């Protein structure tokens, strides 16, 4: 016989203001199987929990229903309380009468009726619940950090400092990320290299960090504590252990006209190259697409001059497989392409550049050794016009609807550094709004306006027309003064919107981690779990989760690392007992379930069946690996015969709930 106890929570006034909790308790007391029903101010408080524990013991309850908040909030709390009282936690159900009722309704009568219906559903379900015991799985004490920008490096360092091995993977030949291309950094204006390079060296030298540059994560399988990743080591044609980074090969290589992507194609490099002098690892790499030896079979100069014999033209991509307990995603972001913005004439004139290209022009490791010269004729620019929000806060299909967050600040930085170094240069900045919430940020921007005399104009460039002498006719509007401006500029700099790295989508698919419409990784809870992805064991660091400056990136990376450490420090993890299983006698072996399972948890086995006529029959049936199954339920919906079912959320239980609601 069922002996169900119902506990209706006031949640202070959160619920009781809209729902007549006493009436709910009174009505639910009459439901079949219910032997006790009450309301209480705060069920989750110690006193509330004790009330549950006492009643379970006193009345020998077989099931408990708590009408309160979302199970996400307190299911664990209440299950623990039930366990304490000797009742299996899975014999407890929650009816969410707060988020799904009190908070979304105004009418007290209707909300009360709904609370009763939700309570009934939970009672109907709990009557069909079975005691479940979670299994245990071991934790692999190794972390995988994907992306080695400042975020990935910081996370890897923190995890390694806690004593766990880390594989740090980057798709590029060097670590460092976008910061390697930035000249000086707001708000302090210290040079990016000065703060970044020592970190890169720390990473390289840490004995628990295994650097895997020029590598791609191809496939990820498994689950929290037990991920298996297949990583592709792309052919570099240079043995990183042998190469001393002397650079002789890069000097001797006859193919010198390859666009230099590190300097955003503003100058050239050789086919064998070292990305930049501070690259980590400081190892050469052959750009196969441009190497004469690899393309045409003739040349071989670099191998001839390399004293340690590090160059191997027969190198090929290799796959390695590794196990990890935790994964940190730190794939960062990039500026969008600006070709679609015809009005700015980016494709028509080399003197229209993006902000990141401007960083390279200013940088000592850039194409002109740090002297700002305009690309068309290397003349010193006397008038520079900056345009903010190119593609940000843009509701057309060309751009992104969001604010890219960092452009106001780096444009102020660019304007200020330009005026500081070249006081004879006129600097204009066209902006939509200035958004500088951050410690010392508004002061920073004001300094640009007040101290450095940068002409900040609310408005936008309407059209840029390149002239034959390389100058640019800029036609713009000043929204505050309500007038058209005509400026003849030497250089136009576009603050392009930021977008997640394009390779992140493949990764998200492999990790079954969610992304939002714009491709940013989504967090498990925007406020309370900001560095955890909804996929257990996968954590988010840095700009892959949304546009960020360096301080926020580093802070988030530290937080993600600490979450990973909390996981890695455990020896065993409790599994989720609410997994799928198939009733073999009903299973057709049709494959529908395996086809929809996002976690590849289902395989097939040949089973022998005794038939009523005493013959035996061999049939293919589905079999679920409970360690891999996440209990998502996709298979149960796909299964036509109802053979596939989930413990704790069986078809029958759900039908029971629906019936109770429709009563």
């Amino acid at each position, binding site marked *: 016989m069922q002996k169900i106890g119902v506990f209706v929570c006031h949640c202070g006034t959160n619920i009781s203001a809209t729902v007549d909790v006493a009436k709910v308790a009174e009505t639910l007391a009459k439901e079949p199987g219910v032997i006790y029903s009450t309301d209480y101010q705060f069920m989750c408080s110690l006193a509330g929990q004790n009330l549950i524990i006492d009643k379970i013991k006193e009345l020998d309850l077989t099931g408990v229903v708590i009408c309160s908040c979302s199970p996400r909030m307190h299911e664990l709390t209440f299950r623990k309380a039930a366990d304490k009282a000797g009742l299996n936690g899975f014999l407890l159900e929650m009816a969410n009468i707060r988020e799904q009722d009190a908070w979304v309704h105004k009418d007290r009568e209707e909300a009360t009726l709904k609370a009763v219906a939700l309570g009934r559903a939970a009672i109907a379900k709990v009557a069909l619940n079975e005691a479940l015991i979670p299994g245990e799985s071991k934790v692999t004490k190794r972390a995988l950090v994907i992306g080695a920008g400042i975020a990935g490096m910081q996370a890897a360092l923190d995890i390694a400092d806690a004593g766990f091995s880390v594989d740090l993977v980057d798709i590029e030949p060097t670590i460092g990320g976008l910061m390697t291309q930035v000249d000086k950094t707001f708000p302090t204006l210290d040079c990016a290299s000065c703060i970044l390079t020592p970190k890169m060296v720390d990473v390289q030298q840490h004995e628990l960090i295994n650097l895997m540059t020029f590598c791609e994560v191809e496939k990820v399988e498994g689950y929290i504590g037990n991920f298996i990743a297949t990583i592709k080591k792309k052919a570099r044609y240079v043995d990183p252990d042998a190469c001393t980074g002397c650079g002789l090969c890069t000097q001797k290589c006859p193919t010198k006209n390859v666009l230099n992507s590190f300097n955003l194609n503003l100058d050239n490099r050789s086919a064998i190259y070292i990305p930049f002098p501070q690259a980590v690892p400081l190892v050469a790499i052959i750009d196969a697409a441009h190497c004469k030896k690899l393309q045409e079979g003739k040349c071989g100069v670099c191998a001839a001059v390399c004293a340690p014999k590090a160059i191997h033209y027969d190198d090929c991509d290799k796959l390695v497989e590794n196990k990890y307990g935790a994964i940190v995603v730190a794939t960062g972001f990039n500026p969008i392409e600006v070709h679609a913005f015809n009005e700015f004439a980016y494709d028509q004139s080399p003197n229209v550049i993006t902000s990141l290209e401007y960083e390279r022009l200013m940088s000592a490791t850039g194409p002109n050794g740090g002297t700002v010269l305009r690309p068309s004729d290397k003349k010193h620019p006397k008038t520079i016009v900056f345009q903010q929000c190119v593609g940000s806060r843009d509701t057309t299909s060309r751009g992104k609807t969001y604010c890219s967050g960092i452009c106001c600040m780096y444009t102020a930085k660019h304007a200020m550094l330009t005026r500081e170094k070249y006081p004879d240069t006129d600097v204009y900045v066209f902006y939509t709004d200035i958004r500088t919430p951050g410690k010392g940020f508004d002061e920073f921007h004001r300094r640009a306006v007040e101290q450095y005399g940068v002409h900040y104009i609310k408005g936008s460039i309407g059209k840029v027309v390149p002239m034959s002498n390389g100058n640019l006719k800029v036609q713009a509007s000043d929204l505050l003064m309500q007038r058209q401006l005509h400026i003849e500029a030497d250089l136009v700099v576009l603050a392009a919107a930021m977008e997640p790295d394009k390779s992140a989508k493949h990764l998200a*698919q492999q990790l079954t981690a969610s992304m*939002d419409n714009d491709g940013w990784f989504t967090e498990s809870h925007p406020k309370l779990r900001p560095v955890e992805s909804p996929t257990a064991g996968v954590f988010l660091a840095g700009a892959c989760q949304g546009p960020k400056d360096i301080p926020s990136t580093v802070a988030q990376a530290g937080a993600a690392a600490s979450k990973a450490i909390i996981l890695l420090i455990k020896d065993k993890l409790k599994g989720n007992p609410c997994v799928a299983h198939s009733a073999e006698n009903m299973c*057709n072996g049709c*494959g529908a379930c395996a086809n929809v399972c996002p976690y590849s948890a289902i395989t097939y086995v040949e089973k022998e069946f005794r038939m009523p006529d005493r013959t035996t029959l061999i049939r293919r049936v589905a079999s679920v690996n409970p360690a891999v199954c996440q209990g998502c339920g996709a298979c149960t919906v796909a299964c036509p015969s109802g053979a596939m079912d989930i413990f704790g959320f069986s078809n029958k239980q759900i039908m029971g709930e629906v019936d109770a609601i429709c009563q």
Partner: protein
Amino acid sequence: MQSEIIKRTVELFNSEEIVRAIGWRKGDFDYDLNPSIFKSSEDLEKNFVYNDFSSANLSKFLIKISQKEDGKTLVFLKSCDTYSFNSLLQEHRISRDKIYIIGVPCEENLDPSKIKAALGEDVLSMSCDGETVTVETLDGTKTISKSEVILDRCLACKSRKHVVYDELFGEEGEVLDSKRFDQVEILENMKPEERYSFWRTELSRCIGCNACRDICPACTCEKCVFDNRDSGVENKVATNDFEENMFHIIRAFHVAGRCTDCGECSRVCPEDIPLHLLNRKFIKDINEFYGNYQAGDDIETLAPLTRFDAVDVEPSIVKTRENVK
């Protein structure tokens, strides 16, 4: 054609390539054929019929046979039947290596009910020379043009192509540009109340005989939910005055994306309920939402509704994909 088919099958029997054949057997009337197993060449030579009334799709019979019996089974499949065959193969319900397929050409089947409706019930025999159907009745010989008595499903034939076979009689056919969604569109253009009353009128004739489910090559479950007291569905069917609502809606969902549009359900329904329209609506929607998909076209392509694709991780990504299109 019939004699050629018999000749070849006898050969296969004699060479011990096959041990049985599934085909159409003479019934009480020559227009009333029964799907049946022929275990010997003698039986086949005497009783096998292939004519304009060989409508039954034989692929579903292969499930039990390939689970239980040894030796190769020959099956005759019309082009539309081959799609069902592929579907069953894809769902691992039959073993390809135990089956020998003879693809038989199809010139549109005739509908005995239409003939009777036109010429009266007292029919003794029916035959067709390709253009004209000649019917012997109690009150003498009557004729009717073939085009007036073609089986409904054949009027909207989707394909004359045999998508799978070991041996083919006649020419290789083509996928047709059928107008099979026209009727669905008529339903779509109805007002909801009109549509509701259309289905209510149609389905209210259902006598719950289960013939549609039993014939359906997509309905092959070891234990159908409607025969399973534990399923929680079985007892739902009879919960209101319009009990067949549930049965048909649930079944339509179960075969959604798997139905090959073979038309067997409507053909066998003793109440002539146009069940295929329910399933065809699903097919049309799937085509529109996910791109054209024909169940049974091949055995590699997975049905859009029962496939997890890495790009499906998030509804948002599905949405972006839509935007891109």
